């Protein structure tokens, strides 16, 4: 494989920017939702759960269309962000990031929720009685213990956001240098007959990016010792 062309660099860097910003923005929201779904009990919880799953269930094009209605220049949220923060989404890389974040959300919430539910709450009460407040207990006990789910959620979300196509093209359009991420570039290439080589190069780029994310997450998982439970059990190997 020869070196990347300037256009390929542009697409790659844009993809990284879009996915990176999407993950950074959605991670706390996803964790908060996972927390609420794991720990709280309230009427309508199933509805919130369903709402979170929505971007998974609906065809991405429909999600993109809904984003267009909500976050477009005339949409209520679109106006809110434009007037409140000077933030516009349509035809901008921020829109691609928004689409990627929304599509990644359900995957992240599920993985994190699973790990939060698995945390032994007796350890939290031990921390409390040792003098740690709610927040410190959360930061020093719950969050590290839920780390495998956070990392899994991040990997899933990142992979999903790297691959996001339908919602992005519908909502943010396919503008080179602004919203043309890897999958959109692949789509454009697929529109031209005889572009297999170009498609392959772009697909391999996608794969490499997420392979890097995977390796990084495995490394983080090992470093954060998030598999401590197995360390002790290792000598019980049968």
């Amino acid at each position, binding site marked *: 494989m020869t070196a990347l062309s300037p256009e390929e660099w542009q697409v790659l860097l844009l993809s990284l920017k879009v996915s990176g910003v999407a993950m950074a923005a959605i991670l706390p929201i996803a964790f908060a939702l996972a927390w609420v779904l794991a720990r709280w009990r309230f009427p309508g919880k199933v509805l919130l759960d369903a709402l979170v799953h929505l971007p998974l269930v609906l065809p991405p094009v429909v999600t993109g269309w809904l984003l267009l209605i909500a976050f477009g220049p005339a949409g209520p949220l679109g106006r809110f962000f434009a007037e409140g923060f000077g933030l516009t989404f349509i035809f901008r890389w921020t829109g691609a990031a928004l689409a990627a974040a929304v599509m990644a959300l359900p995957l992240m919430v599920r993985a994190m929720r699973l790990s939060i539910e698995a945390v032994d709450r007796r350890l939290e009460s031990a921390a409390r009685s040792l003098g740690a407040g709610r927040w410190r207990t959360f930061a020093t006990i719950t969050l590290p213990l839920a780390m495998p789910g956070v990392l899994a959620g991040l990997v899933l979300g990142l992979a999903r956001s790297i691959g996001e196509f339908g919602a992005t093209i519908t909502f943010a359009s396919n*503008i080179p240098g602004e919203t043309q991420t890897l999958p959109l570039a692949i789509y454009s290439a697929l529109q031209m*007959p005889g572009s297999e080589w170009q498609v392959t190069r772009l697909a391999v780029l996608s794969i490499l990016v997420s392979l890097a994310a995977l390796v990084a997450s495995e490394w983080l998982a090992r470093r954060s010792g998030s598999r401590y439970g197995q360390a002790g059990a290792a000598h019980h190997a049968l």
Partner: protein
Amino acid sequence: AQQSGPLVLAAASLQESMNAAADAWAAKGHPRPKISFAGSSALARQIESGAPADVFVSADEPWMDEVQSKGLLRPRTRVSFLTNTLVLIGPAGKAKRLTIRPGFPLAAALGPNRLAVADPNAVPAGIYAKQALTRLKVWPSVQGKLAPAENVRAALALVSRGAAPLGVVYGTDARAEPGVQVVGTFPASSHDPISYPVAVLASSRHKDAEGFRRYLISAEGKAVFRGFGFGAR
């Protein structure tokens, strides 16, 4: 912002030709337009939601009608400037010629296999194909043997990959894909005229928008598209 070119929303099937036209326009000293290629329906919805673009090139008339009916086109800028043909294709080197005339034995030629088309209920190329096959009175015999694809390029890929022995696509697509060959051309009378309208959007503030539209519909612009097999009006 006026340093960069106007934002053109163009149907995905114009990918190569529109890029070539933009390059030619840029070579004349204008900032190169930014072009977003996607399905006409997605682009039209973006325009309807108030997206800030300058020029819209649709692959069919109904979506341009839709946008126009909402008052989103700059008055008197809409022109249908390109035409295309509808052809029957088969895998390169393997397909036998078929003469396309009323009642031609399409079903027999398919055998147990399917006919690759763009979605005949939704995608323009599929709608034209359905019209043509209906007028040629072969629709009932192939109606149950269709493989409707997402768009015309995907239908093309089904044939070039050998998943379907025959397909109905635009002449421009068939010409660009070395993996397929034209088996026959549908008479222009068998379907509505295939035309590509262009218009400047009402919300456009870009000084080059109208200039680029004029270039596209000029003899010079049309020549670029002719090079890719389009007809020009």
